[in-house]
């Protein structure tokens, strides 16, 4: 009998996300074992426990998933896991806290597609506003855009929090190579006239950009919203929008809604899980690989 595929699923929370468990099962991980309320300090011993008991052929059928809600913590745990490997006893690891890495990757890749398709341009030097950008999806979207050469500003209700998150993005995720700006929402009117792209990454059911504000953005090209529950986070973008012109935009901007993003997110997430099964050597996957795989998927569709 071939050894079953085992995915050890670690989370800092009391529960694993059933979404992630379903995804892992459907990607062919036959045993999805939960490890709950995990502290960063436990990762090393858990990983070393996981790598030694199945032999060199078994480690190829073993991997770890890191969930939770905090992107910084998840990346630290991923790094610790990677450093804990004892070759040839090493396994692949995927971090995707709150699904934020795959969601942000899908959203940014979809926006990039629309920039190319409708405006013959890319993310380089674009002014990008991330509304309610201090959460997990917002911060990672900011990082991916900034690493792609865009000028990014994270907006939030409290400027101090935006600043804290921007600093985290620049120093930790960007390793000092990116300069994301931080603003409070009261500065939004000043920034809208120059904005090329707007992302809304807020909680469900809150409108972050009104129809008047959309109309007041003369350079707006693409707007995307991860919120699937009405009212939309950006007026004029419904959940099904997928490169659909936004009614009331004075610049011919197109919208991308939650379901279109969710579809790409699903594919990227699935491919990352499959990559851990199929890769000949161990892989360590976070938002960068999620973005690369989302871009690949989009290209395969065009």
């Amino acid at each position: 009998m071939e050894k079953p595929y085992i995915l050890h699923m670690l989370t800092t929370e009391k529960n694993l996300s059933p979404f992630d468990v379903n995804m892992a099962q459907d990607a062919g991980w036959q045993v999805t074992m939960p490890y709950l309320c995990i502290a960063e300090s436990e990762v090393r011993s858990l990983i070393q426990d996981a790598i030694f008991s199945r032999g060199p052929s078994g480690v190829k059928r073993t991997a770890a998933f890191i969930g939770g809600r905090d992107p910084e913590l998840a990346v630290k745990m991923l790094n610790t896991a990677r450093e804990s490997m004892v070759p040839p006893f090493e396994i692949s690891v995927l971090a995707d806290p709150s699904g934020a890495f795959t969601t942000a990757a899908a959203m940014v890749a979809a926006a990039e597609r629309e920039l190319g398709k409708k405006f013959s341009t890319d993310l380089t030097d674009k002014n990008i506003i991330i509304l309610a950008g201090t959460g997990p999806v917002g911060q990672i979207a900011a990082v991916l855009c900034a690493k792609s050469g865009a000028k990014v500003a994270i907006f939030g209700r409290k400027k101090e929090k935006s600043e804290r998150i921007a600093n985290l993005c620049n120093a930790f995720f960007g390793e000092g190579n990116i300069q994301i700006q931080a603003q409070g929402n009261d500065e939004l009117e000043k920034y809208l006239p120059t904005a090329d792209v707007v992302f809304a990454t807020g909680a469900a059911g809150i409108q972050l950009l009104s129809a008047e504000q959309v109309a007041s953005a003369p350079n707006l090209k693409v707007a995307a919203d991860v919120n699937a529950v009405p009212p939309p986070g950006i007026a004029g973008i419904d959940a099904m929008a997928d490169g659909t012109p936004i009614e009331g935009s004075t610049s011919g901007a197109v919208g991308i809604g939650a379901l279109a993003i969710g579809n790409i997110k699903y594919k990227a997430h699935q491919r990352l899980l499959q990559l851990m099964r199929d890769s000949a050597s161990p892989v360590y996957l976070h938002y960068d690989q999620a973005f690369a795989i989302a871009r690949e998927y989009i290209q395969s569709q065009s």
Partner: protein
Amino acid sequence: MTTRTILHMLSPRPQVSPFDINMAVDAGFDMIFPHASVEPSQVYSLTQDIIFSRGPSGVKKTAIFIGGRDIGIALDMMETTKQAMVPPFEVSVLADPSGAFTTATAMVALVEKQLREHHGQDLQGKRAIVFGGTGPVGISTGVIASLAGADVTIVDHLSLDTAMQIAEEYNHRCGSTLKGTFASSGASKAWLVTRADVIFNATKAGIQVLDEEMLETAERLKVVGDVNAVPPPGIAGIKSKDLGTPLSTAPNSPGVVSVGPLAVGNIKYKLQNAMLKDLLQLDKPVYFDFHEAFTRARKLV
């Protein structure tokens, strides 16, 4: 549909060990269910919950694994499962906290075999020192070697009280005759080594407990065993794959041979795999702890 096999894995720790989960999956259990942070007081009712829902044929497809890190607690928990069984509603139980029973029995059985092959002797009356002797693998190693007739001293690296207290506890519990001591300095370790026939190392990975200078004092050493697979070796000169390999770092003990961590790990793996499989393959329910593990380890080597 055939009844699926279920292994309920109990641990007093916040997590059931991924090592044991991998082993259980590979032993062929269809369903692995972790029960973490289990208090000893919960074991009775958990056991009865486990035995009563699948009917007399279902219990034959159900088993319990007891993990954690504390071998005393694991042995107590196993005793509680026995008391909770209501024949014919009875399932097999395997206790192997920290993998200590299978690791320790594998090491002792391999060392015993080398002692016979290279020195024509058994463990009876041999002076054995267990470094890392107050951890789960160390205690198990001490108890098993003692029950096999060796004169065993378990060594704690910090505290005499800890070592003596643990020796007394497990002598009472398991019928062994362990002595306890502590050795933190090179000089005290060298002194212990002088008188030893056999040295077992069960200290944490990555710590060298005996260097070449300390080993130089060994005058009657015959076999050394080490479970530590992460460099540097716990005992200077031991290599991972050693199995009856001459140890060059103890020049004053002619004929001394070593047993390395991969040799131990190999037997440990086979042992744990076979015991997991046999939980469901024997006619009646079984209770496997270090006694069964040692009997099997001796046959395996």
